[in-house]
């Protein structure tokens, strides 16, 4: 087989031929479009990148310098921290790999052509060499390509399960904290129920119910979406409690009362007076939830709950368990990949906590 130099388009063509769309690209595009619509289109982008007037006219007619905005202060604090920059760039690189891995990887992650390339260093369970930098696995698939491709599932599961649990948790928490009484009672009881679930045990049950159950329409859902749903649906309870407590705290502050006196609606008070002020812990917890999501996904697929057609780091460790003695790198490389990504997200969470709210430190 001639695989000396494959051009970029040829790789993409081969990719499309294998009917495996780069889903991460679709997801990334989806995210960008969502952010665009949520932030009122161009104004958000302008606010991010557009030059601002540094000198403004006050109501008296006098000129003064614009006081630094909150986000610029946060950025200043963040960029001073070396660990923060390091972890941020690590996360960024991982995300870039997860989006553009079809271009980077030398072989298909599920194709078995290295198996038939034994004379050039391929075959089944070979040692790492120049052509196959991480060796090949037991079915003769290139381990390096699989490592790159595994980042997609890990990151999509981590990020989207975190977003899902943020959506549920923040909405319910804000409602419970703002409209006391019966609303709070009902929401808090539901939260108690989800807090009382043995998380991993129920997640194993739910994943196998959705993936191998008797309901046909549930079995159609792809593996990563299943894990996103399970982690998101069962993981919001702690966040909900935190948001409810913070909302309660802010509810009685003077500026919220002032807004209410001025006739602001409940929706406006929640959206523009309460939520922005409890954003710091939410962002930090969301980042840490990404790390937790990646770990949980790895754990679930390690237990053998993934579908064999999906490329996932945890599943690679699981499959390599039979080859521990001869090819330890097959198990260790994906394991360390999980470790470094999770470590990067944990460090990012800590750095964001320090930058967003210095009082939260320690």
């Amino acid at each position, binding site marked *: 087989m001639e695989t000396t130099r494959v051009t970029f388009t040829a790789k993409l063509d081969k990719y499309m031929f294998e009917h495996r769309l780069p889903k991460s690209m679709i997801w990334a595009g989806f995210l960008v479009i969502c952010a665009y619509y949520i932030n009122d289109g161009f104004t958000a982008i302008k606010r991010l990148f557009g030059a601002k007037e540094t000198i403004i006219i006050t109501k008296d007619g006098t000129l003064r310098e614009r006081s630094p905005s909150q986000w610029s202060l946060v950025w200043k604090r963040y960029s001073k921290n070396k660990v923060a920059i390091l972890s941020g760039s690590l996360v960024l690189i991982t995300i870039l790999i997860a989006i553009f891995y079809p271009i980077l990887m030398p072989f298909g992650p599920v194709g078995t052509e290295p198996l038939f390339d034994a004379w050039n260093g391929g075959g089944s369970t070979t040692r790492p060499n120049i052509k196959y930098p991480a060796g090949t696995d037991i079915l003769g698939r290139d381990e390096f390509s699989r490592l790159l491709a595994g980042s997609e599932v890990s990151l999509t599961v981590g990020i989207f399960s975190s977003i899902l649990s943020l959506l549920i948790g923040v909405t319910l928490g804000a409602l419970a904290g703002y409209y006391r009484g019966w609303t709070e009672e009902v929401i808090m009881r539901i939260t108690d129920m989800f807090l009382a679930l*043995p998380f991993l045990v129920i997640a194993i*049950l739910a994943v196998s119910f959705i993936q191998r159950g008797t309901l046909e329409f549930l079995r159609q859902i792809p593996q990563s979406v299943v894990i996103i749903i399970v982690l998101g649906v069962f993981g919001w309870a702690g966040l909900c409690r935190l948001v409810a407590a913070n909302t309660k705290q802010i509810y009685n502050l003077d500026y919220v009362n002032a807004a209410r006196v001025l006739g602001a609606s409940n929706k406006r008070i929640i959206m523009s007076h309460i939520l922005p002020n409890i954003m710091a812990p939410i962002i930090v917890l969301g980042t840490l939830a990404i790390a937790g999501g990646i770990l949980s996904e790895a754990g679930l697929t*390690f237990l053998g709950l993934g579908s064999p057609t999906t490329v996932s780091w945890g599943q690679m460790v699981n499959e390599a368990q039979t080859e521990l003695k001869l090819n330890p790198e097959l198990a260790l490389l994906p394991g360390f990949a999980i*470790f470094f990504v999770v470590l990067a997200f944990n460090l990012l969470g800590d750095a964001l906590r320090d930058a967003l709210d210095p009082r939260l430190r320690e």
Partner: protein
Amino acid sequence: MDKNISIALKIVGFVLIIIGTFIPLYEVAFDAVSLSGEFSDSEGLIFQLFGARLDVQQLTFIGIDTEGNTINEVQALFRPTQMASAVVLLSAALWFLIVFAVLFAILGQVFQSGGFRERGIFSDITAAILLLGALIVSIVAMNNGFNIISEDYRMRVDGNQAFSLNPITFNPNEENPAYFNLTFIGKFAPGFYVYIIGILMVVTSLFLPIDWEKPTSSTKLRGLGETKVFQKIKNILTMRLSVYITRRLLTLIPLFIAICVMTYVMVNGMGDPVALILLGKPRATEQDKINITRSLGLDQPVYARFVLWFYKLLHFDMGNSYRSERPINEMIGELIWETLKLQLASFFFALLIAIPLGVWAAKNQNTWIDSFSSTIALLGLSMPIFVFGLILIFIFSGLGLGWLPAAKAHRVPTPVVITGEGFNIWWVTFWERSLDSILHMVLPTIALTFTFLALYTRLVRSTMLEVLRQDYILSARANGLSERTITWKHAFRNVLIPIVTYVGLFLAFALAGAPITETLFTWPGLGYRYVLAIGYLDFPMILGVTAVLTILILIGNLITDIVYVAVDPRIEL
């Protein structure tokens, strides 16, 4: 109106309800069974009918022969669908309704005595609605005789008679089900009327217009109220902590039921265990499939199965495993000890390291010690436990140094050479087994310790920093106390509060997190067997493990909350 009347009505009403539930409420009418008759077995011997025994799947008639010596049993099959979905459903429903009604009535009393008028009224109304529901259920039970159709009994046909069946005390799934004395009770069921009177009394008492804050008019009762015992009871009842605990206990029950419903629905949608069982059988016929489905009770609708399962769970019976056909109680009892052994050992070591490390790091903030401890904590948080376990296996097990075993725990072969008798044999096997268990425990314990260490070091460090910033530490320092006294006597005691309160939560967390570690090291514990049971579609095992874990977590949360309130006086309820 005086509140004594209401309380008295409630008490008498509930006593009547409970008495009524122990008197048979409805009868099971047989199609054509002579209760004073005779039957003959396959060899032609004639037996006098002595009694009948009801089981889930079958009805057994017991007879004595003419000399009154030997006892023979004839079994009559009947359709089990009618059994489970009607009798058990109704009796379980009655049971639930009555228990909840009692709980809500007590809560209403507690609330109204404590001055929470609106909540008390709400609880009373709920209790009344539940009692009326119980009334409706019992009327349904009265009017529907459960016709149990016998398929192949050899009895003489001799008129219609019936025997009584009590919905509360009846448990068809006991090992030795109660013998029912066959008596003709006709259409009159006295328990029903006692029951109705009790319910009416309680409902009336709930809606009497009563001023709860007004003291009672009876001077005798008021004099009684000043005695010490009653004062104490009154103090306990009106204490906020007891109201809080009652409330928490009440919320636990619907929580548990909701979780059970959710898991039951998910487990039953997981696949077809009958097909999996039949896989091992050569030439399995359609009849085999039907037989197995029936014997597992899977031919009944899901709600009836759930009620039956829950009813059995309340009697501490979780059914038999589909795989090994052993009772789940026994299996979980053995496995939970194995899991706890592992988890508690690693918890102990983690605390042993984490407390000094966290305190040391907090005392030397922003030095190399601090960064060392936070690095360890960060590594422990970020490392997936199976990767750390794999590294340990590569280094210490047969793949590397060969010091410690990594798998096949608890598989000691029986000793070949027997060197002694009695105690010596026991001691040798015991020693070998213990040594084997301990050797196999080392690697999983290290792996788990690493994870727990991270959590606890962070907790101890942040709490210690918070405490050290307090004013009383400053004043202690200003008074010239030594640094050691300040750290361990003044600061550390306050650090203990979150640690102690986390123990309850820890148990739950540890038990739920067991599957991954146990699967990696093939440790025969709850988590490993749970993952296997998911693969085998062993429904009773899956349900049993989730139910037990949920109960443990709920109790852990409750204890945590109570301890938190009891230990820390600053917290207001």
